[in-house]
């Protein structure tokens, strides 16, 4: 029943999930089991690259959930991603211990450099992996909760909401650039050594991180499917299409928007936490407003309001970016801009819109309560029984 609801009615999604699952099996084999001399061998660099893409896909998924289904265009999703990343980064910094340049067992290098005597209070607890993981979820979630509560209660919608989310991520970027904040300022957090006791640069660790990212993406996808196929999901679609009407149906629109916004920010935070150990650094540049805009382009390219479109978009655009930036870095931004224009003009439904959506619109609108599933006592309601 649940499988049917989550997957069978969602052909595109099932295909994308199957491809990701396949990737999760094949990539570790090609990297670890195939000897480096073989042409089939996949370098650790590629594994890390794919792991990064998986994190991006998770981030894009979080954007599609609120933008595609609830119509909330957040241009600050990168902020939640970065906060999750910083929480993970702080844990990784604590794992360095006395192995830093200055060999101080108590303080991270950048604090020694700034002549700090003590660990700031908000760094306490990050020695523990469990606590850090809690913060990965709580920090973005809490920020989204407070920010969303204020914004949605004041009925800030549409482009105004987009603008203040840009301001949010920009403000955070400026704050994190400051050394006094205690997050490494300009340089951010880097030079990581271990994660839960395993050397971070080892092939096996890389594979483990890659697998974790993939599994997180699969689980997040199923969670999002569960949300959009529930009654909650239909209400959220109604809010997207006619907010005021939904309110007159008796729904407290603000609460719905707030909870889906918080959930999406938590997903973004998790994506950030998985991203940081793979790239080995987190700095305030991740908060850059441009990043948040770029990831909206991924979703638009893939096709919004489908969930799997976001994954497709994140992979295609980032693969394109990797190609472009290695062959002719100057042209990448032009290509990105052109892509956005082309998608907006020619492919309003994105890439997945191309793949013959022959059936009716797939975005979670198929009737779930088909008569065949209802257990009708055919008494006064023979009408229903006739229909079967």
């Amino acid at each position: 029943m649940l499988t049917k609801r989550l997957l069978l009615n969602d052909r595109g999604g099932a295909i994308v999930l199957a491809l990701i699952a396949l990737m999760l099996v094949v990539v570790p084999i090609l990297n670890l089991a195939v000897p480096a001399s073989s042409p089939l061998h996949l370098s650790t660099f590629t594994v890390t690259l794919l792991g990064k893409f998986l994190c991006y896909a998770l981030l894009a998924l979080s954007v599609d959930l609120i933008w595609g289904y609830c119509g909330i265009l957040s241009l600050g999703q990168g902020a939640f991603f970065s906060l999750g990343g910083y929480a993970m980064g702080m844990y990784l910094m604590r794992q360095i211990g006395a192995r830093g340049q200055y060999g101080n067992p108590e303080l991270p290098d950048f604090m020694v450099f700034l002549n700090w005597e003590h660990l700031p209070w908000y760094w306490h607890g990050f020695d523990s992996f469990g606590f850090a993981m809690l913060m990965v979820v709580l920090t973005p979630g809490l920020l989204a909760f407070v920010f969303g509560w204020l914004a949605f209660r004041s009925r800030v919608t549409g482009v105004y909401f987009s603008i203040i989310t840009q301001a949010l991520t920009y403000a955070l970027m400026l704050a994190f650039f400051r050394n006094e904040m205690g997050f490494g300022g300009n340089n951010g957090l880097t030079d990581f050594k271990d994660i839960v006791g395993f050397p971070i640069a080892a092939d096996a660790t890389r594979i483990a991180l890659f697998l974790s990212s993939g599994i997180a993406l699969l689980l997040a996808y199923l969670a999002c499917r569960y949300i959009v196929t529930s009654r909650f999901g239909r209400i959220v679609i109604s809010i997207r299409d006619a907010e005021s009407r939904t309110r007159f149906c008796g729904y407290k629109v603000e609460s719905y928007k707030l909870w889906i916004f918080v959930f999406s920010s938590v997903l973004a935070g998790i994506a950030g936490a998985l991203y940081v150990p793979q790239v080995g650094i987190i700095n305030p540049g991740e908060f850059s407003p441009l990043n948040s805009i770029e990831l909206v382009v991924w979703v638009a390219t893939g096709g919004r309001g489908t969930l799997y479109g976001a994954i497709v978009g994140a992979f295609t655009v980032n693969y394109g970016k990797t190609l472009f930036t290695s062959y002719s870095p100057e042209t990448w931004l032009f290509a990105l801009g052109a892509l956005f224009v082309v998608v907006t003009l020619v492919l309003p439904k994105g890439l997945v819109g191309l793949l013959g959506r022959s059936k009716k619109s797939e975005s979670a609108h198929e009737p779930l309560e088909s008569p065949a599933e209802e257990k009708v006592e055919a008494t006064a309601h023979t009408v229903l029984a006739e229909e079967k």
Partner: protein
Amino acid sequence: MNILAHAKQALPVKDPDFSNELSGFGKDVDNFGAPLDTSKRNILYVEGITVSFDGFRALNNLNLYIEEGELRCIIGPNGAGKTTMMDVITGKTKPDEGSVYFGRQINLLELSEHQIARGGIGRKFQKPTIFEALTVYENLELATASNKAVWWTLTKALTGEQKFRIDDVLVQIGLKELRYKNAGSLSHGQKQWLEIGMLLMQSPRVLLVDEPVAGMTGEETEKTAELLLSLAGKHSVIVVEHDMKFVRSIARKVTVLHQGSVLTEGTMDQVQNDPKVIEVYLGE
């Protein structure tokens, strides 16, 4: 039947705003926490309402009483304040002066839109505002009177009883065969009926219907008149309409609004022969 009557827990609804249900997980207040007192026959008391927009008085000391189960038509020239009156009753606009009571005890001015909607006052807008991306069935499902808290809608499906109710309403509004059709592909008249059906799903005590037959074909108009007449008695129905022929076909009591207040009230014949009405409205 009466969702207000079985109010077990007398939760005082003090906070019409947000913090009340912040958790999103709690039991949602889907009624006003007190039984509806209609012992004086009236269900809606609108008294001395004044609304000004930048100095323009859209409503000027408006008084209106609606009886339980009655079908009331409200007419009036453009700018008479018909839509503003509906806005006030449904909580969209807060008046500068006056009071609006639902029954004798529930002060609607203290409540927010969604609380009023849940409590039993449904509104049909002029333009059909259904959810075009959803099917007919899903539109009704959305409008079902049920727990509308976030957690509930995420985890619980509708009960069998609620599904039966949807089927009943589908029959009532004549869209049973189109239940799995996308609402966006319905004809104009069908959309209007669907919207009335969505109001019915909330088992409202009062239905506010704004220009239901605008843009309808003759046949559709007739069907709409039948539908509205069948609803009176079970619900109090307030219809705002321009189409005089239609009003004549359904009206028992007509209220004429003019410049934000009530000009006169009576049967259609009384109203049409009233010299004041002829002057401001029919005589034009």
